[in-house]
């Protein structure tokens, strides 16, 4: 195995006329592509939502915890949710998302449970670490309390975001998350056009994406 490594690196160096300690030129600058200037927060939210809707996502603005409870009740009914799984973040504990779902008669499954059980959930609820308005993109980092399966296995993905998650573009977002073990950019529900180029939602990932902005007074 080591000999393969030496041989490949040796061949690469020979092809390039480089040696083990050859100098490395600076990385060509990306700054000539000017970073995007963000608009006002309200305009950014409007753009984010319009982009998500273009990609068949469903958006909603919530004006507080009571609003959240109402919205959850409507979602549970509309999507016939019987089982759900969610992030275990302090934010969700403070909002008591789990309690609200339980009160609606929804059975909660731990993301750490057997993956077959998680896959049976109709709903997965996550937060949003970074939101990028230009493309309607939600960035989700993963960690023990934010397992990646929550946004992947259930049929419906609900992402609850705050204004503080807004960033102008990828430059800013990447500089914040690049040391994270895993993150994913989610832009609309899972899609394919592999059969006769017909757009079809929900191939392997969620069939529906709900993005809710939660403002609290």
């Amino acid at each position, binding site marked *: 195995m080591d000999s*393969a*490594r030496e*041989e*490949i*690196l040796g*061949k*690469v*160096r020979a*092809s*390039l006329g*480089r040696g*083990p300690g*050859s100098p490395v030129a600076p*990385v*060509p600058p*990306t700054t*000539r*592509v000017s970073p995007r200037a963000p608009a006002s927060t309200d305009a950014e939210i409007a753009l984010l939502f319009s982009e998500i809707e273009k990609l068949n996502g469903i958006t909603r603005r919530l004006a507080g915890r009571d609003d959240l409870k109402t919205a959850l009740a409507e979602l549970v009914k509309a999507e016939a949710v019987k089982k759900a799984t969610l992030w275990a973040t302090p934010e969700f504990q403070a909002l008591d998302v789990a309690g609200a779902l339980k009160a609606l008669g929804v059975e909660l499954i731990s*993301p750490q449970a057997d*993956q*077959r059980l998680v*896959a049976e959930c109709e709903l997965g609820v996550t937060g949003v670490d970074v939101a990028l308005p230009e*493309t309607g*993109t939600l960035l989700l980092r*993963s*960690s*023990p309390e934010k397992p*990646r*399966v929550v946004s*992947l296995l259930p049929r419906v993905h609900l992402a609850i975001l705050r204004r503080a998650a807004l960033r102008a*573009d*990828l430059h800013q977002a*990447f*500089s914040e*998350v*690049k*040391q*994270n*073990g*895993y*993150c*994913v*950019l*989610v*832009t609309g*529900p*899972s*899609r*394919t*056009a*592999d*059969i*006769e*180029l*017909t757009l*079809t939602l*929900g*191939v*392997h*990932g969620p069939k529906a994406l709900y993005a809710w902005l939660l403002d609290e007074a």
Partner: protein
Amino acid sequence: MSQAAAPIDFRTNAQHVPPKMPAAVQKATAKFLGSRAALVEALGNDLWQTLRQAGHDLRLHAITHLDHYLEQAERAVTKVGGHVHWARDAGEANRIVLEIARQHDVKKVVKSKSMATEEIGLNHAMEAAGIQVIETDLGEYIVQLLGVGPAHIVVPAFHLSKEEIADLFRKKLGVDAPAEAEKLTQVARTKLREEFLAADLGISGGNFLVAETGTIVTVTNEGNGRMCTTIPPVHVAIVGIDKVVPDWESLTVLLKVLARSATGQKITCYTQFISGPPGAEAETGPKELHLVLLDNGRSRILKSPECRETLLCIRCGACLNICPVFNSVGGYTYGYPISGPTGMMFASQILGAKAAGGLPFASTLCGACNDICPVQIPITDILLHLRHRVVEGDEQEKAVAPYALRMGAQAGSLALRTPWLYRLGSTMLKWLQTPLKRDGWLPRLPPPLNRWTMARPFPAFASDFRTWWRTRSREAKGRQ
């Protein structure tokens, strides 16, 4: 050359293209090109050209410092708990994956679409060892059921009708579903869900490998890429050594041009960034991550300054979509999983001139691929150099063209370089053609030149260049 591949005969393959293929291909390519053009217009051409230039410079920087970035990536992946393997060729890569599979007693593998694994024939190698491999990209799943390879690098089954797919599902899966895209997709979702949950190993490629943090980046729409790298207990990523980029900042440019060029999306549905296994964090996800760095001839491509930009390719497929030849013949004619202009460049170098020397000739050199390429690869310059390599040989390979063709090319070159020989030749050709000439055309030529006239007549020589030039200058003076 590691593969003793049978020579690819593009000309013969092109004669067996089913009549419905060009129509299906053009429907798809027109759609992708239309969406792409709308997004480029929305960005503005100036910004788009700046992005292409930046993308080109970043990729060229990466491959011309490849040794440095590979070592950096290796250190970073190891640091975050991943295992790095180096594979000199296809056989070695397959052996590495099989060994990992053996250690974990793997029976079932789920795979997301990866051109690197198509290149090394991984599925065959695993199936030969008694391991079931399931392609999970919907298009790949369909062509796998059909027992063929991808017809397009982005949309592998774009040439099949929904009726054909419904029929295939009935025969192979025993599921009776109506011929509707949504119903058929639902069938695949249900079947593949079971496979994801039962699989012992997930295999992916990588669109990029970020040296700075050892991050494997995958760009997908369906979510199967996430499933393959999240659900099974072990994840193996097979990544060509050319896929390395210096840092995350480079990604801000490359991700912007990739999705726009590929499917006409601003960004794909899911872009994943995987730095090591999550094991230590006690999070869900695979407990082990293996990265296989595949050379398989890439270090040799790097050797030729004329051809090394072949490796800048980010596999968006835009050059396939715009290529007039690809639009007429479809992907299978190229006899290689990566088709179209970028496939011709890549395959004829990876497989060698002997096996794939015909491919660089399957181009009109119109240059549309150069203009559309999001990282500005001078594709037709490279194809021309590869033609030169096939006919005359270069520092990398001996000439493989038939002796007569080589002699013909040399004679032509000599005649064009020697004024008196050129004059003699052009006069002689005018005389020689007289018995064959009919109404200003040559309907039949003797072998081997009849390969042209079998399909269409050859225009008769009306004049030689010098005479034409003299007449033209006289006429121009007369007009003044």
